[in-house]
């Protein structure tokens, strides 16, 4: 019963978050300067034709009517039809979503795999040269701008060394294992770009928390009992220090998805982020709205699933 209540509340919270995201997106895209009919119109079209374009898009109706219509369609799973491509938005986005999942998923995985050991190294060598190097690296990584990193990687590894492709996500005519290898090769630079920008937050957070944990009494007790320092760090201190890091994953997920817009654009990676970039220029409201809803839903659902799993595994959470 507690689990049902817990799950219901979480689902309700997610629905409210999604509604908020949908509403904000709907109004924000309409605040964009310009007029979709102008973005599409050619000089030889007359005023009547341009008005017809607006009418075809439903943009001649009052904003409130457009909003209610949009919500109604959304509840039926209809994201609308792209202004520019005349195909369903769901089709446009589903074609691109897997690439964004691969990029953001592997960037997150790689960040954790590299970032956590680095954080431990920095904390266990507190004040030493290694700690300083890791800290400076982390701060620099956080301060960098996505295009700066992206262009530097493209020039170095794409053009000069020629190790990785300049753009795209997969080569032509590759199948099976060859296709996986091609995807991995195209993934390296955009993924690395996201890892460089994110990893600092994980390393520095874990370092601080681990240093705090290592000073706690339970670690002193463990040491007094004769536990080797390695065991104290990995078995006792790290588990507690990881708590805030886990929270950070949830917080960073939104930033990661946001970073994907720029990264995908720079590396010509065909994901949802790039669709957003293109749609802004074209004032393609349905695709913009659909992409934002999809990304918001992905973040919300990922958090919901882990919350539910967490609730299943830990009764104290359900009670709370």
């Amino acid at each position, binding site marked *: 019963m507690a689990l049902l209540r817990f799950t219901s509340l979480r689902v309700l919270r997610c629905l409210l978050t999604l509604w908020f995201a949908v509403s904000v997106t709907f109004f924000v895209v309409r605040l*964009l*300067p*310009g*007029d979709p009919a*102008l*973005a*599409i119109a*050619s*000089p*030889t*079209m007359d005023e009547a*034709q341009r008005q017809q374009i607006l009418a075809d898009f439903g943009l001649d109706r009052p904003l409130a009517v457009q909003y209610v219509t949009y919500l109604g369609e959304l509840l039926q799973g209809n994201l609308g039809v*792209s202004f*520019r*491509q*005349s195909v369903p938005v769901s089709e446009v986005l589903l*074609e*691109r979503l*897997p*690439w964004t*999942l*691969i990029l953001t*998923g*592997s960037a997150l*995985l790689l960040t954790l795999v590299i970032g956590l050991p680095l954080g431990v190294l920095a904390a266990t060598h507190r004040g030493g040269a290694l700690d300083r190097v890791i800290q400076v690296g982390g701060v620099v990584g956080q301060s960098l701008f996505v295009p700066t990193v992206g262009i530097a990687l*493209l*020039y170095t590894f*794409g*053009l000069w060394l*020629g190790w990785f*492709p*300049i*753009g*795209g*996500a997969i080569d*032509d005519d590759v*199948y*099976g294992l060859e*296709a996986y290898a091609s*995807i991995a090769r195209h993934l390296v630079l955009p993924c690395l770009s996201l890892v460089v920008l994110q990893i600092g937050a994980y390393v520095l957070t874990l370092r601080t928390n681990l240093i705090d944990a290592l000073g706690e009494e339970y670690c002193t007790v463990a040491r007094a009992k004769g536990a080797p320092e390695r065991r104290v760090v990995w078995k006792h201190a790290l*588990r507690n220090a*990881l*708590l805030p890091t*886990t929270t950070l*994953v949830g917080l960073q997920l939104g930033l990661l998805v946001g970073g994907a817009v720029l990264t995908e654009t*720079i590396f*010509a*990676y*065909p*994901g949802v982020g*790039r669709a957003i*970039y*293109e749609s802004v*220029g074209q004032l393609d409201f349905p695709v913009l709205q659909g992409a934002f809803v999809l990304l918001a839903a992905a973040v919300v659902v*990922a958090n919901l*699933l*882990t919350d539910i*799993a967490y609730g299943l*595994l*830990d009764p104290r959470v359900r009670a709370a």
Partner: protein
Amino acid sequence: MSTSRGFGRRVALGAALVLALAACVPSEPDESSDGASGDASEGGDGGGELSIGTTADVVNFNPLVGNSRTDSWVTNLMYPAMMTIDDEGTKVPALATEWGYGEDGLSAWIELRDDMQWSDGEPLTAEDVVFTIDAIKAEQLGTVSGMIGAYESAVAASDTRIEFTLSRPDGAFLNSIGFWMPIVPEHVFGQAPTVADFANDSDWVSAGPFVLTTVERGQRYVLEAVDGYPLGEDDSGPALDRVVFRVYPDVNTEVLALRSGEIDLIGNALPPSVARDVSGDDELQTFSVPSLGWAHMQYNMRRPPLDQVEVRQALAHAVDYEAIREVVLGGNAVSSNSSVLTPTFAQWVDDTAEEYTYDPDLSRDLLAQAGVENLELEMIYDAGDPNISSWAELVRDQAAEAGITITLAGLERNTYLARTNDRDFDIYAGSWAIIDEPQSNFHLLFAPDGFINYAGVNDPEIDRLMVEASTALTVEDARGPLQELARIVTEQVYDNVMYVEQFTFAASNEWTGFQPKPSELLSVVNPQSLASVRAAD
């Protein structure tokens, strides 16, 4: 506790990654369904693959609806135009062989080649042309619908001859539909309830040198060669096996891709600074083609004191045009002698036209004559245009020499379009991409109700000359009124034409046979060019 939560996330993350990968890995091709329609006899004879960089996806595969540059590059390779354009800006035969008007100008005819067919084996006939123009008229489709105001009806007099009935004489009618109207297959497009809503996003049928077979949005568009296209260097079809358009975020990334060998040709024109850099690369070749439009400034005559011709002339004489062409454009631009009849179109050029001289003293005198002091104006332009963003600063600094204060407003493109459309500016800086038929296009520019009459021109003499020019059925008859009109535009500074850009395109030296044509729209990716490309020896 944290471990279990983290484990859950990792499992979810791993599962999402595996699912995403599975969705992205292509399955082995099935010989029985290659995406192309019917039994297209595949062309290319081991000629290889030409990769072309573009900065945008195809947004619409229906050539009667789509109007973006990449849309046109791809669909032009499948849906032939009846005419193309030569180096002197003259319309020349493509699908059509001959054309003409009846004596009263109320009828016209076009004769087609008899050796063109669709890739599914159906012949391309006059019926396809009639279907196309009727669909455009009935459904008011795209750019061409604005060009066929005089069109009433058409009949296919034979498989190769179309006869048109016009409501009034229109000397630009045939050239406009010949160049701008892609012919679509009636047996395919006619199956859709409405042509406007026909997405044409699979099972493509082509009468061009290539047919689209694979679309991966955001990545690539693959077109396979089709045998029998007669308009390339070899009339048996293209030498290439296939052409692939690859999507990159911008020209700079395209240049990286070209230099790394990832692509063979950049479809987009290179900015002058990049063009200079690329032209020194031994492994690349460059092509220069003229624009079919011009770069210009327009002064909003609805706003005093810009309604005074002396003020507009003062502004025109406060700019060093040659410096802009040499410094900002790096010499990749030519003077149009301040005339809207640019040197790209040899048949219209007025040899007596002269460019406004750069003379700040004259500007001051003209302002004094107009009784205007401390002139302060705002100039809007698209901040995303690297050329205009650069020369706008020169214009501001040079105008200051003449005592005119210009405030620059570089705007995001959609804002710029909106303000231009609302006529909310003092000075507008921009460029026309293609003004290829002055007989009809000038109406858009200078008629009181013209859609792109940004300056607010309302001149009865201009209106009279436009009617005279548009009803003239020969170049000789239209030239006089057009040149007179252009002289008035220059004198009155209705449009301050600054230069005609010479676009530079770059390709790998590994290919030869390109046939460049004017404009970024045609450039080296026009159907005749790509049908003629082959590997260099």
